[in-house]
């Protein structure tokens, strides 16, 4: 291993550390009792037994586990994100397959899809809010998912199209001269070759919609998704370890989910 490889490893580790920095602190602070957040961290607590929240000096985990709105928001978030993931994966696949061929206005269409990401979140959120107001439409989780899909599709599209095998079309022609019907060409040739990207698109849909606050904020009514709920709580109330406990809980679930997913996928990739 040359020094270049070593430098690369160190750099990659540093960047990962940088990205994880707030996460580490979040986890550390979630075990803190009391409300003040400062360094060095004092008064760690492991009060894992469930007792109803009374004063200030209880584990942050108890107060988050007793927050009903938190669970409503979690529910909403799961619904929105799963729906967005499915929509993203479907739309990205169909669009990418269509844009692959030379069709009239291909560039224009491509830019139009990218526009979904380019338009700043506040602006688009506001626009959708206007539209609902003008046409008297009640907002719903479905609408949130649709708005978020506009935002996630460009990402998935770029991923899928940039990874398309340049010879994909050749393989399809080969299959069709070998007597495969269009449906079979798709099922036997196209889909197996792009399945990795299809799944990736779904994941991107999930990840992006899970963290999105700005667009959701404008469209959402009520408790909202986890992201908007926590954001609203944080901007009204002082910051307490409760939210770090919430973050840690989410992180644990996320980590397990991603680990399982990564394990399955890593058996597919080579």
């Amino acid at each position, binding site marked *: 291993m040359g020094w270049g490889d070593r430098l690369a490893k160190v750099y990659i580790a540093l960047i990962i550390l940088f990205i994880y920095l707030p996460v580490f602190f979040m986890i550390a602070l979630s075990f803190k009792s009391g409300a003040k957040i400062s360094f060095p961290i004092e008064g760690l607590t492991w009060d894992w037994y469930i007792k109803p929240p009374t004063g200030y000096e209880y584990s942050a985990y108890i107060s988050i586990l007793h927050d009903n709105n938190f669970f409503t928001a979690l529910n909403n978030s799961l619904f929105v994100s799963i729906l967005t993931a499915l929509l993203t994966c*479907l739309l990205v696949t169909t669009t990418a397959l269509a844009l692959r061929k030379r069709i009239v206005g291909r560039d224009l269409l491509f830019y139009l899809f990218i526009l979904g990401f380019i338009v700043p979140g506040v602006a688009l959120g506001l626009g959708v809010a206007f539209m609902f107001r003008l046409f008297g439409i009640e907002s719903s989780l479905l609408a949130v998912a649709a708005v978020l899909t506009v935002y996630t599709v460009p990402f998935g599209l770029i991923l899928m199209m940039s990874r398309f095998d340049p010879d994909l079309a050749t393989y399809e022609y080969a299959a069709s001269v070998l007597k495969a019907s269009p449906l079979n060409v798709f099922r036997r040739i196209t889909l197996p070759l792009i399945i990795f990207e299809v799944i990736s698109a779904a994941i991107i849909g999930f990840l992006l919609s899970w963290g999105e606050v700005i667009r959701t904020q404008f469209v959402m009514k009520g408790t909202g998704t986890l992201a908007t709920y926590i*954001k609203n709580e944080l901007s009204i109330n002082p910051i307490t370890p409760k939210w770090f406990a919430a973050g840690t809980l989410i992180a644990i679930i996320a980590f397990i989910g991603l680990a399982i997913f990564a394990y399955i996928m890593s058996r597919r990739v080579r």
Partner: protein
Amino acid sequence: MSIPQLKMGVLDRVSKYSRYLLLLPGFVLLLLFLLIPLSMIVSISFFERFTLAGPENFTLSNYVTFFTSPQMSTILLNTFGMSLIACLIAFLLGYPMAYFLVFRVKSTRARFFVVSLLLVPFLIDWSIRVVAWLPILGESGIVNYSLMSLGVIKEPLELLFGRSALLIIWPQTYLLWMIFPSYLALTRIDPDIINAAKVLKAPPHRVFFDITFRLSLPGVVMGFIFVFVSTLGDYITPALWAGGIQTLGLSVANYAANFVWPYAAALSTILVVIALLVLYVLLKVVDIKKLVY
């Protein structure tokens, strides 16, 4: 006399137009949730009021008000400048990461592992992650604590307020937006192209700048666009941390929260125009379509 012809099945007919059919769902979504909302923003920005009955009284005053207001230049500069610097920092940090991942991490498994690792924080709530900077950069956070105990400074630095907050938090939060497209672009470069440059007498820095970097530019530009527009639209980080830094996005949110719809719409329109202008300039420099076709 008629010429005998093979019958086309329904499926054959469908597949003949499949490319247009395939575009339909995506297009419907764009129409309903992008094009119509955008045109609403633009049109409402030209009215005085927007009530339940619809917009009233055509006027240009929203724009006049903004462009004659004393804060106008500060706001535009904040918005534009902060986003651009954040992009630049994200690029300086993120591009080497993408480069090393592609050219120095040989095993696909290890690469996959690192990419997965980068994704985990995404699932942790965004605001919590932003807030979690408090124990690091806050008044009594680790940075100030260390600096003060080392005696480097007497008073805690106000790292989390004002511009510095944005320039630390934004690049960190949106770093993946830069790494991701750069990474994709770099993986698309045929290793033999780089080999060819090497055997044609190019020293390492020329190989990098003339070939590798040049060919990954579409991805870099895409990354710039992603980070730029993400930060343009992000009014929450400035709202939570950068107290006193007024950005265009934050103004939109504030006016919208106070139901000053047309003015918020006008500011949004300006925001969209800035985003498109930057996009246009970048596209003039590099053809980002190269990343995908």
